[in-house]
Every structure is written in C-alpha cells, then in structure tokens.
C-alpha cells in the first residue's frame, strides 16, 4: 500500500512539474535568423558525432570496469557507469551546465541564469566556436561531465551502497566537477586566464577523478578479504570490449575538443591514436620484461593509460611527441599499478594509478612537449618555455586541493547520514543481489 502511494505521489508530482518544465524555457530555441547564421554544417556534424562518441564511453567504461570485478558484482559495477550517465545527463541540463559554463562569478563558478538550459539554443554562442549551435557545444560538454564521476567508481568497486552512490554522484558533479570545469574551460575561469593548457580535460576529468578516487578508496576502506582471497577479473572479454569502445569514443573526446572539423581535429585524432598505441605497447613490454609475459589486461589498461595521458595534450603535440607521451604513460602507470598492493588503501580498479597519475603526467607532458609547430596556442619546455610547466603544476595543484577536500567532505557527510558502505553480508553476497536483486549471468 505504502509503495503504491509513493508511486502515485511520484506520478502526480511529475504531472505537476510538466507545465512548469515546459513554460520555464523562455529562450528562443529556434534559429531566429537563419540567414545570418554562421553555423557550419561540417563543424556541427563533427561536434555532434563527437558528443555521441563520448556518450558511448560511459557504458564502455562500465564494461571495462565490469569485467575486472568478481562475477557477483558485474551488474553493480556496470550500473555505476550507466547510472552516472542517467543522473548527470539530467542535472547537467538543470544546473550543471550553468554552473560550469554560465556567466562567471569572479572566475570561480557560473551563475544559475542558464538553469534548465534557459537561453542555450540553436544559435551559436561565444563558447567553443561560433560555427556550432550552443546546444551542440553544451551536449559535448555534458558527456564529459557524465563520464568523470563514473571514472571514480573503480576506486570503490564491489562495496558502495547504491543509495550512497546516487547521492555522491549528484553532489560531486555539482560541487567538484562544475567548479573545476569552470576554472579551466570557461573563458573567464581563473585557471583559463592563467594560461593553463588542457586540450580535452586532463586535469578537469582525469586528474580530478583520480584524486577523488584516492580519497574515496581511503574513506571507504578495503574490500573484505583484500589481498587475502583471490579477486580475479571475472570476464576480461568485457574489459577488452570496454577498452576498445573507449578507444573508439575517445576520438570524440580529444579530436572533438577541437570543436571544429579541420586540421586541428585531425592532429588531435592522430596524436590520440598514436599515444594510445604507444602506451599499450609501453605497458605490455614493461610487463614482458618484468613478469615474463605481456597480458591482454595489461595491453587494454595501457591503452586506457595512453588515452588519459594524451587527453590534455592531444592538440598541442606532434605525432612523435605523442609516441613519447604515450610510451612513458604506459610504463609509469604499469609501475604505479604494481605498487598498489604495497600501499595502504584498496583502489580496487586502479583509478589513481591510471587516471590520477596518467592525467597528471599528461598535464605536465603538455607543459613539456607542447609544440608551436603543432599548434601556435601552446609552447612547452622543449620549445623554450619552461614557465608552461609551472603553470601546469599550478593547475594540477588547484585541482588536487579542491577535488581532494570537497570529495572528502561529501563522502564523510554521506557516511554520517545514510552510510557509504554495504554491510559485510551484502558485500559477501555481492552488489548484484544485495543492491539490485539481480544476477549478471544465468548461463
């Protein structure tokens, strides 16, 4: 009975909200004056395709992670990513985009005047490029906001309460992601004006997620039996599938970040592919030298490490630079992952080692390798501008402090109220059954 009442209430509120929703958008969504429009069909096609590609990355991440957990947690893990996609898609439209890209309050945060995409329409905007509809730019940015919190989930895999996770996502994307995106990408953001280079989100997305992951792994504590019972990846096919779709989608992430379709997009496309391949080779060869066998999981992980590292730098370096950035990323992240069991926390799927460190290396590498031959907008250490490295460190530092601090506060708040972690017996049963009453396979 009670539940039926809850559902009716839900339905009622929804209906009530309808009228509000529909009228609250006074913006002109339609092209008022198409004749003078500067919208370019090729640029728009490229940006929309890129947004679709980045969308695909979030479920892909679900499979990448889902294959690495134990069978009993496969759905819970895939759901982490899928749920981030659902939640942030809505909150971004409601307030996230306005906070991140709306009119800036002292370079710190956007105001809420674009709430519900009020004023974000089919015409072009001062953001991104004048040749693409504002809505296209918004949706491209949305996909970044979606995937970033999903990345963190690898750190607390196999043990977080689903209700806690739901609250976490909403708070984190509002109070951590939106401000940092504002600082770095909004033309009035303080890091943007400082001159920090971040082509497609090395700091905003990866370093940010990596630091939040570190905090989360520490606050939530280790999985029951960690390092005592075997916790083997249950389906590496899923992981390779995820990594492959990530690679595919990442062309949208990086080459799409050129916003326009042309030479810069082509450059970012090539450096992305090259660094990714080089990082997969770097990781697998390091394994080969170190353990005697290159693994498939290693190659897939290395590819992701390369994708992460090249993200901030894709549009600033040469293809040869990309080989260096990628190969080093592969070796660094492999080393980090190997050290993990020696550290005191259980970053279950190596978000810190891959996204944190990879993102950090990518940000610094941008300061080193950025070549004016590739893109006049950036000049790094190797081209005589040592100062760029310092700016890059500053951007990383700011991200580190804000993300670390606010993530900590959010998690502690949730823990004190509804609790972060499933019970011991739920953890033993697995997230699939305990959180969702489903099993992943009835083969």
């Amino acid at each position: 009975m009670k539940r039926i009442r809850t559902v009716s209430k839900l339905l009622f509120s929804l209906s009530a909200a309808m009228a509000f929703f529909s009228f609250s958008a006074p913006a002109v969504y339609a092209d008022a004056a198409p004749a003078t429009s500067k919208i370019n069909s090729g640029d728009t096609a490229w940006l929309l395709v890129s947004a679709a590609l980045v969308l695909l990355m979030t479920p892909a991440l679900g499979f990448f992670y889902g294959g690495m957990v134990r069978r009993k947690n496969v759905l819970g893990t895939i759901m982490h990513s899928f749920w981030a996609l659902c939640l942030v898609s809505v909150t971004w439209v409601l307030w996230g985009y306005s906070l991140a890209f709306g009119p800036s309050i002292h370079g710190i945060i956007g105001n809420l005047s674009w709430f519900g995409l009020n004023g974000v329409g089919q015409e072009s905007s001062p953001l991104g490029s004048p040749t693409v509809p504002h809505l296209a730019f918004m949706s491209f940015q949305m996909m970044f906001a979606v995937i970033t919190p999903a990345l963190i989930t690898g750190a607390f895999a196999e043990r977080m309460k689903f209700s806690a996770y739901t609250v976490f996502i909403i708070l984190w994307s509002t109070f951590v992601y939106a401000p940092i995106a504002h600082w770095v990408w909004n033309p009035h953001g303080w890091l943007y004006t400082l001159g920090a280079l971040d082509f497609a989100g090395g700091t905003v997305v990866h370093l940010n997620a990596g630091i939040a992951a570190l905090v989360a792994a520490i606050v939530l504590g280790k999985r029951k039996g960690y390092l005592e019972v075997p916790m083997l990846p249950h389906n590496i096919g899923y992981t390779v599938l995820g990594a492959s779709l990530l690679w595919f989608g990442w062309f949208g992430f990086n080459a799409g970040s050129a916003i326009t379709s042309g030479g810069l997009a082509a450059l970012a496309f090539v450096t992305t592919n090259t660094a990714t391949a080089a990082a997969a080779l770097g990781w697998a060869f390091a394994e080969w030298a170190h353990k005697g066998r290159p693994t498939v999981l290693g190659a897939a992980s290395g590819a992701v490490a390369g994708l992460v590292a090249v993200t901030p730098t894709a549009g600033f370096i040469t293809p040869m630079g990309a080989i260096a950035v990628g190969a080093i990323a592969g070796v660094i992240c492999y080393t980090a992952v190997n050290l993990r069991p020696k550290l005191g926390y259980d970053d279950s799927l190596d978000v810190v080692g891959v996204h944190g460190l990879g993102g950090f290396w990518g940000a610094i590498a941008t300061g080193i390798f950025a070549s004016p031959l590739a893109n006049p907008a950036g000049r790094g250490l190797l081209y005589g501008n040592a100062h760029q490295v310092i700016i890059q460190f500053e951007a990383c530092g700011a991200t580190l402090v804000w993300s670390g601090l606010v993530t900590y506060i959010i998690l502690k708040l949730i823990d004190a109220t509804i609790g972060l972690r499933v019970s011991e017996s739920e953890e033993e049963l697995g997230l699939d059954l305990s959180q969702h009453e489903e099993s992943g396979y009835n083969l």
Partner: protein
Amino acid sequence: MKMVQAVIKHTRLDAVQKALMAIDVHGVTLTEAKGFGRQKGHTEVYRGVEYEVRFLPKIKLEIATPDEKLEEVLAAIQTAARTGEIGDGKIFVYEISDVIRIRTGERGKEAI
C-alpha cells in the same frame, strides 16, 4: 578407503585448501554446486516479476583418503570451513571399494 565429500561456502575454499595441505592431503577434486537447506535464499526481480531463489552457490570437494587419516581430514575441513553461520555446509563420508591411478595403473591405497 573413504571418500570425503564436503559441501562448503565459496569463501572458505582457500582456508580449507590450506588446512588440507597442512595435513599433507595433496589430492582433491572440486565441483561447483548449489545448495538448498536451512539457509535463506534470496529474491531476484526482473521487470517486476519476483523469483525466489533457494539454491545458493556452494563448492563441493571430494577427497579420497585412507581410513586411518579420515578423522584428521574431517577435523581439518570442519575447522577451516566453519564460519558459524547457517549454510556452512555438510560433510558426507562414503566407503570406496577401489581406487586406480590412471597414469600408473596402481590400485588401492597406493593410488590415493
């Protein structure tokens, strides 16, 4: 000779294996099983339809052992497999009339 068949929880497999190695048992055959007993099952819900699942995943171990070692083996398993919660499982003991090692053709106790 006896065959010891133990139905245990997944989570105790490692401990049981170690306990067996500690008493020099170096032969075990394992199968994935599902058990139904006092332990409560769980519900699965798919598109609104609820299913009662009463069979829970278990591990079945089979260990052939000479008669004189039987009690040692039973004790080792029972101690290692025990969590004290319902569903810890059972041990069944059978008589084996013969054992053959395929590789060598040895028979009886030698073959265990």
